[in-house]
């Protein structure tokens, strides 16, 4: 397992993508740090960019990587190694590279210009989202035999969680504005990792005061030990289930 991972990592780290992605994140972080001195504004801007970009790049990169390495995966399946290990080495390598890019890309400017707890949480959410969307992308990849289809499915995951879902929630809130919706929205937030990441982050900043009664309710929930525990376990669940499902399908897949 670790032997396979070692070579998978070596291959992916050497690819131009890892470098370009990290550079891109560094540039984004630097430019935002230049614009504002206020740390909470910086982390808010970084958050907004991250919530759009990171899932998109993770999903597309993980899918293309899976298909580019398909023949090699086939060759590895003909070797005396477990199917599970072949799968895990591929996905772990992708997740590692995506996470390192965020850690270095956003982390390096932070070391230079200072950071606080909220920025560290931002890094954590970025890594979490990378893992979740890489997992969803691998799930999409094992479900089809066609690269274009798999990229399509990965992109629809992204569109759904980043755009469509919010519209759906807003529509729901406006339609049922006369009813108390705090708990419902809380439940809905748990069903979308992007929203969950956003709310966890917003609760770290003072902006939640502007969000009225629901904001106060959220602040109360995500500030409590129970809320932190619950939200982080839901986040972990989001990281875990796509990988587990994808691996289950991979084990029975014909190559």
């Amino acid at each position, binding site marked *: 397992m670790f032997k*396979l991972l070692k070579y998978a990592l070596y291959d992916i780290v050497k690819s131009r993508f890892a470098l370009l992605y990290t550079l891109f994140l560094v540039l984004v972080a630097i430019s935002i740090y230049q614009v504002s001195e206020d740390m909470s504004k910086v982390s808010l801007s970084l958050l907004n960019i991250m919530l759009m970009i990171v899932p998109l790049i993770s999903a597309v990169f993980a899918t293309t990587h899976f298909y580019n390495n398909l*023949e*090699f995966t*086939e060759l590895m*399946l*003909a*070797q005396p*190694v477990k199917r599970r290990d072949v799968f895990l080495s591929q996905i772990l390598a992708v997740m590692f590279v995506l996470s390192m890019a965020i850690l270095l890309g956003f982390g390096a400017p932070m070391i230079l210009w200072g950071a606080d707890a909220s920025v560290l949480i931002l890094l954590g959410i970025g890594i979490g989202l990378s893992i979740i969307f890489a997992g969803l992308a691998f799930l999409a990849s094992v479900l089809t035999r066609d690269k274009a289809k798999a990229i399509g499915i990965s992109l629809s995951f992204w569109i759904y969680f980043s755009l469509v879902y919010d519209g759906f929630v807003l529509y729901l809130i406006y339609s049922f504005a006369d009813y108390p919706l705090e708990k419902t929205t809380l439940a809905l937030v748990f069903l979308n990792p992007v929203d969950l990441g956003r709310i966890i982050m917003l609760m770290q900043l003072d902006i939640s005061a502007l969000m009225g009664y629901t904001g106060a309710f959220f602040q109360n929930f995500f500030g409590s030990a129970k809320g932190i525990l619950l939200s982080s376990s839901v986040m972990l669940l989001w990281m875990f289930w796509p990988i587990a499902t994808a691996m289950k399908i991979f084990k*029975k897949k014909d190559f």
Partner: protein
Amino acid sequence: MISVLQIHKKFGKLDVLKDFNLEFESGKSYALMGPNGSGKTTLIKIILGMVLPNSGDILVKGKSIKGSFAYRSDIGYMPQIGRYPDNIKIGQLFSMMQDIRPDIKEYDMVLAKAFGLMEMLDKPMHTLSGGTRQKVSASLAFMFCPDILILDEPTAGLDPIAVEILKNKILEERGKGKLILITSHILSELDELTNHAIYIHEGRVFFNDTTKSLKEITGESKFTTAIARLMEWSLKKKIDKTEMSHV
């Protein structure tokens, strides 16, 4: 050494292999033939565990391959098209394959040397031509002195010198009493390398005997014409089917 027992494989609605039974014994070398889409590659992939059959079982050295992976260290496999991670170097690929098999300490580098791969160990895979990649695949298949060799179109894309080297190596291994399984569309090559012919037609074994008896049965003295006759017969069985592929 390999027993294929009642294997049935469907891809969607299409039955690729229908209650397939075959026995491969050590010391023999088999030519696996059949038109495109007859199920040759599927059979090989099932033996290697890359494709999982709907029913039936495969025994390698008497043990079922279900849920097992260790048996693959007995098999040297050369795929039709070998593709490798772009940024890995030849030397790293070799040492990775060696890492995967910690029990094997002695490596057969004869092919790698003969192909001149030892001088380009630090070349990344994406800089290699298709033929050189085939050479890498061939070297890997023979590197661990496996008891079973499965070669899927081994000479496709190789230059004539490399083909000669590979053929000699296959003959040498055959002399050592290994089980060799070759698929190819180049019949003259199969005639040289194998002594047992298996002809698959529409997911069933149509012919399975020694090359010698193939020639006797068909009444032809040349291997290529004997196979051509076999093909005619297999087509006559189903005259209504006109869209047979080439060979």
